[in-house]
């Protein structure tokens, strides 16, 4: 039976999140001390060797990302992505609410590695209470001097999903509309205010203190070899235990939903699970033995994403849910690039038509073509991933669409 393995949630429920002393007594800020005794280059090397990969969804090697920052850069920034806008995701909130200093320590370790004096936490506007919680923790850390000359400021987002994309997030911190930039240059070379910037997710930073403490090999040996460590998953929808679980990355989807999640309530049967947020793939029963690591999921044609796990039982109407998701993307497209602005609009239009039982097979064909074009032609991850729920449900839940088409004929 699958079990939890806690790295980033190790202190959760054990310490008072409002108490810096509690965090210090649990060994807090010792890893920062250790990192600061190392050369920045050594820290980057250690993180690279641990094979820690970004926990926000893109799965890029964190140490490699830090390595893009030029050593000679006089000003650099550390930015934490706490935008957490993927529906069904509440892991970053869970980590920060339980252990805010873990995030601050992780950011300070990164700051040492890239020689940064200034960090920003971009917290979504829907979490004003988390902003207050973090500001209290930062004030404590400053007063006690544990962060040294590294300063951290919290900036509040404005409820724009696209700001989870790192260059849109940077634009938003700069006080602009949160529209993604063209890449390259990547933020590691020219990011916030044109300076080299590392943007990592909360969960990525929160892994660092344990990696510095226990070493790269320790971390690399946990879970799946190509995407080692743990991952925090947040369960929602038709599942008994709707809460956050931290598990090794070789745990399978089935173990997460049925062992830890307690299965489907009310004696109903499983129908689908959408993993990784609202831009994630819909996964049918026959793929449930896929391990929850980035590469295994990708090889199965699905996504790991943020770690949202949205379970649907046999009574759920897939076409109706996907129509709602299409509405989400039509609303959240920032409008900068045509394939996304027009594509999300037309996708929603076609999904509404299918959902109303008024579509023809030709409409489904148009939707398929449009979806494929969007995955290639959109500027950022929002538009590229927006068609994933449509394409994966057309692949795995075709019967649900067929029923709507038959309704149109009769």
């Amino acid at each position, binding site marked *: 039976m699958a079990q939890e393995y806690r790295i980033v949630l190790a202190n959760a429920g054990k310490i008072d999140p409002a108490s810096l002393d509690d965090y210090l007594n649990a060994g807090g800020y010792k890893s920062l001390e250790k990192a600061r005794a190392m050369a920045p280059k050594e820290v980057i090397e250690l993180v690279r060797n641990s094979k820690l990969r970004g926990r926000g969804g893109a799965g890029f090697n964190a140490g490699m990302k830090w390595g893009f920052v030029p050593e000679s850069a006089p000003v650099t920034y550390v930015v934490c992505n706490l935008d*957490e*806008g*993927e*529906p*069904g*995701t*509440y892991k970053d*909130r869970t980590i920060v609410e339980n252990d805010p200093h873990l995030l601050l320590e992780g950011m300070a370790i990164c700051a040492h590695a890239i020689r940064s004096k200034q960090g920003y936490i971009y917290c*979504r*506007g*829907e*979490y*004003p*209470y988390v902003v207050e919680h973090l500001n209290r923790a930062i004030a404590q850390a400053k007063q006690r001097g544990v962060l040294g000359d590294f300063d951290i400021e919290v*900036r*509040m*987002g*404005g*409820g*724009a*999903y696209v700001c989870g994309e790192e260059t849109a997030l940077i634009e*938003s*911190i*700069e*006080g*602009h*509309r*949160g529209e993604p930039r063209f890449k390259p240059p990547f933020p590691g070379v020219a990011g916030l*205010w044109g300076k080299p910037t590392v943007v990592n997710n909360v969960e990525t930073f929160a892994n660092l203190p344990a990696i510095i403490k226990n070493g790269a090999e320790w971390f690399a040996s946990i879970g799946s070899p190509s995407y080692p460590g743990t991952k925090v998953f*947040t*369960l*929602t*929808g*038709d599942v008994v235990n*709707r*809460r*956050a679980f931290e598990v090794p990355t070789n745990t399978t989807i089935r173990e997460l939903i049925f062992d830890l999640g307690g299965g489907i309530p009310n004696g109903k049967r499983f129908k689908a699970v*959408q993993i990784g947020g*609202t831009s994630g793939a819909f996964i049918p029963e026959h793929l449930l033995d896929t391990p929850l690591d980035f590469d295994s999921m990708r090889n199965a044609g699905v996504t790991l994403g943020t770690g*949202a796990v*949205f379970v*649907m039982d046999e009574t*759920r109407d897939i076409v109706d*849910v996907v129509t*709602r*998701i299409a*509405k*989400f993307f039509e*609303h*959240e497209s*920032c409008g900068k690039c045509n394939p996304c602005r027009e594509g999300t609009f037309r996708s929603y239009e076609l999904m509404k038509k299918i959902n109303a039982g008024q579509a023809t097979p030709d409409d489904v064909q148009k939707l398929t073509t449009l979806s494929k074009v969007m995955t290639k032609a959109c500027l950022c991850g929002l538009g590229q991933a927006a068609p994933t729920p449509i394409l994966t449900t057309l692949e795995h839940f075709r019967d649900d669409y067929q029923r709507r088409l038959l309704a149109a004929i009769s």
Partner: protein
Amino acid sequence: MDIGAVLAKYRDKPGGLIEAYHAIQKELNYIPREAVLEAARVFGVSEAQAYGVATFYSYLSVEKRGKYIIRMCESAPCHVAGADEVLKALEDTLGIKVGQTTPDGKFTLELTECVGQCQETPVITINSVPYPNMSPDKIASVLAQCT
């Protein structure tokens, strides 16, 4: 509220425009037109840019709103958990539709995407405070807390 004083406070902060808007909205529940025009001057951007920022973010509003802003999450996890029924109950109880404010200026009803409380769906927020596990029969007692 002295809008000029709030803007002055954030003027020298890099990227402070959005922070200033948040501060204004925290007091007034929206960003009045004169605040957008004044912000353009203070931050040295065009009025179009200042307005563009104020209207890009769904959390910011340039329309006058009520004392209590009720937002119903319409993302997929809340949708399957019965968000539509909760929304209908809110509309019926308040006598307004989504996007409207009650005539006494007390309540504004809006839709929102995910508010990150998906462990207890469906969720509404009232002035950003989440009320999880909502159902039509709980609406009256939740609204009664708004005085």
